[in-house]
């Protein structure tokens, strides 16, 4: 049963537009992540938040900005999207200091025309 929810499922937009993706987890976890999965299925970490605090910020373009209102929510905003931003964006969560497992949402597929 899904416990990490992502909206929207997919989004198609034009170059230069702004988009926002939402993620909510109902597992009571305190750490959340954003990953980017490209067309070759390669998964790369983008951001990690622990208790609303940014703890990992990989080298991603500045047009990407994560937003956390509480430990159950982690959103991702992309200002002025580029064609290379077309990908699946996956949200995940886990308990810091607890079990190693990360729980993933179903992803948001972004297509930039």
């Amino acid at each position: 049963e899904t416990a990490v929810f992502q909206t929207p499922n997919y989004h198609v937009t034009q170059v230069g537009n702004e988009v926002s993706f939402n993620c909510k987890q109902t597992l009571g976890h305190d750490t959340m992540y954003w990953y980017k999965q490209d067309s070759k299925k390669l998964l790369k970490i983008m951001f990690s938040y622990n208790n609303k605090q940014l703890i990992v910020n990989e080298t991603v373009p500045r047009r990407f900005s994560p937003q956390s209102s509480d430990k159950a929510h982690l959103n991702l905003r992309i200002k002025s999207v580029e064609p290379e931003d077309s990908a699946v964006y996956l949200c995940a969560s886990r308990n810091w200091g607890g079990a190693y497992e990360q729980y993933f949402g179903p992803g948001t597929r972004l297509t930039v025309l």
Partner: protein
Amino acid sequence: SQWGEENLQALSIQEGEDVTMNCSYKTYTTVVHWYRQDSGRGPALIILIRSNEREKRSGRLRATLDTSSQSSSLSITAAQCEDTAVYFCATDPSSSFSKLVFGQGTSLSVVP
């Protein structure tokens, strides 16, 4: 990169066959995760092996870890069509549990 190769590998086998997928990593890790990803879904953990374990079993799955060569493998015994998925290995190179670094993945197709 944390991993030796960046390209998705593809394997196709017949139902009932055994299959082994391999990963090698460059940076020390305390644990290797193996995830599977079904089409249209996020990855899900299927087995995890710690650095003090050489082998771990779960049903038809068997994971091995060789810390001296920094490599891990995942074997599936008597594969079934429902094993069709993309399989990833992942490590936490910082050992701080702050993130996972995923390998390139293996797309496994099990045909009847």
